[in-house]
């Protein structure tokens, strides 16, 4: 780093110019929220089953009496012994947040394909409290385009982040949002993937403020520096 060193007045000039761009960015973010709220909804008709701490539950059950459900598709393949380190980094960001969301009529849950026993053990190891259920044996992850069968990858037909691609992993990251109306009907309202989950990682928003930024240029994959919080 070899930034110019200036007086506070000089710095302020540069900062004020950037401030206008930042305000424009905030307004653009508000506009995106309005567009998401105006999206049409699609009905969810499949009876998905999940396994949680209290046994088998339906998608409707996951709402826990609220009308909105935010799902974090946590990458945890049934063959793995621990959850994905990058998703674990995301989880360290959102672990303290569900209680606040609950008071805006939103229930938050993580969902992974690993069997519930593995999820429960890993959650305990990491000291997390957010709800997390298993979709093992269900089509849920495949229908949400966050898990892919070997034949899909072989055909170059893994449809991830709204594009067909050949090199998707067996499990990928994403966020899906659902709504339940007074009659109990379920709707899928929104999903995002890939860098669409970027804004939900507070740590990256914080790194975007510091002199070195995300500082990931020299790595062969961006999150090479990330470890589980008990593995640094």
């Amino acid at each position, binding site marked *: 780093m070899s*930034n110019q*060193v*200036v007086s*506070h007045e*000089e*710095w302020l000039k*540069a*900062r004020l110019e*950037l*401030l206008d*761009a930042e305000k424009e*960015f*905030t307004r*653009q973010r508000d506009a*995106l929220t309005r567009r*998401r*709220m105006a*999206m*049409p*909804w*699609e009905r969810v008709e499949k009876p998905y089953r999940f396994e949680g701490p209290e046994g088998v539950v339906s998608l409707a059950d996951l709402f826990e009496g609220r*009308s*909105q459900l*935010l799902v974090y598709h946590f990458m945890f393949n049934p063959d793995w012994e621990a959850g994905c380190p990058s998703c674990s*980094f995301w989880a*360290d*960001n*959102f672990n*303290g*947040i569900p209680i*606040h*969301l609950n*008071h*805006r009529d*939103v229930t938050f849950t993580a969902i992974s394909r690993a069997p519930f026993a593995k999820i429960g053990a890993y959650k305990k190891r990491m000291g997390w409290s957010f709800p997390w259920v298993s979709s093992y044996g269900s089509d849920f992850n495949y229908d949400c385009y966050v898990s892919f069968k070997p034949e899909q990858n072989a055909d170059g037909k893994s449809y991830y982040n709204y594009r067909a691609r050949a090199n998707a992993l067996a499990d990928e990251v994403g*966020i899906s949002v659902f*709504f339940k109306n007074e009659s109990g009907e379920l*709707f*899928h309202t*929104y999903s*995002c993937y890939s860098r669409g989950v*970027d*804004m*939900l990682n*507070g*740590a990256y928003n*914080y*790194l*975007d*403020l*510091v*002199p*070195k*930024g*995300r*500082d990931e240029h020299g790595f062969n994959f961006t999150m090479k*520096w990330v*470890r589980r*919080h008990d593995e*640094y």
Partner: protein
Amino acid sequence: MTTHRTGTRKDWLAARLELLEAEKEHTRRSDDLARRRQELPWVKIDKEYRFETDDGSATLADLFRGRSQLLIYHFMFGPDYTAGCPSCSAIADGFNGIAVHLASHDVALSAVSRAPLAKLQTYKRRMGWTFPWVSSLGSNFNSDFNVWLTEEQQRHGGYEYNYRRAAALQMAGNEGPVAEIAAMTGTDVATYTRERPGMSAFVLEDGLVYHTYSTYARGLDALWGMYQWLDRAPKGRNETGIWWRRHDEYDKR
């Protein structure tokens, strides 16, 4: 909400793809802003600030804990508050888990408030947080970074917040959302609003500390984790007033 437009997968996808383009543009803009922040000039810090920390008295350079970058969250907790600001507490619920990640990536994250250290420690224990939090009581630090104003400034104006000169504060009495949140800190509107929230970044190079960046007001929006999630919910932020509470106070209403 029950009259919301529903469609087939095809309808939904068409709308979603259009929105995706706008979201990608937003992500690129975010990257661009980060680059511009990195290019900002720096201002050398010449003052000798002192802070009270868990390990005793410390300088600004000490707060880097061996890293070259320091992020300070200006947490609103004045000496007269009985507990930290509920909004700052909701922000802290988002960053509490990430200090360990940032620390391994050459960034020390610390909160700084004017309340005496013992008050900060008690409240931090109550909330179950682990991030470093130090007291700037008796130092000009909060005032120099525009997150604290005197009663005099409050009455007559002339202080700066979010890069704007502010006029004298209109004392709205003890009603409304600000009074409500002030009451949650055991203070009145005037005392509560003499503290302000913000985030400042510093760099340590060859033993010298430089101020690189500060953001205030809605500049903190992207750092307030819960809002990024609500921005994806069908009802959005869905708020008309102060709905949030400290995480251990929700059921006490």
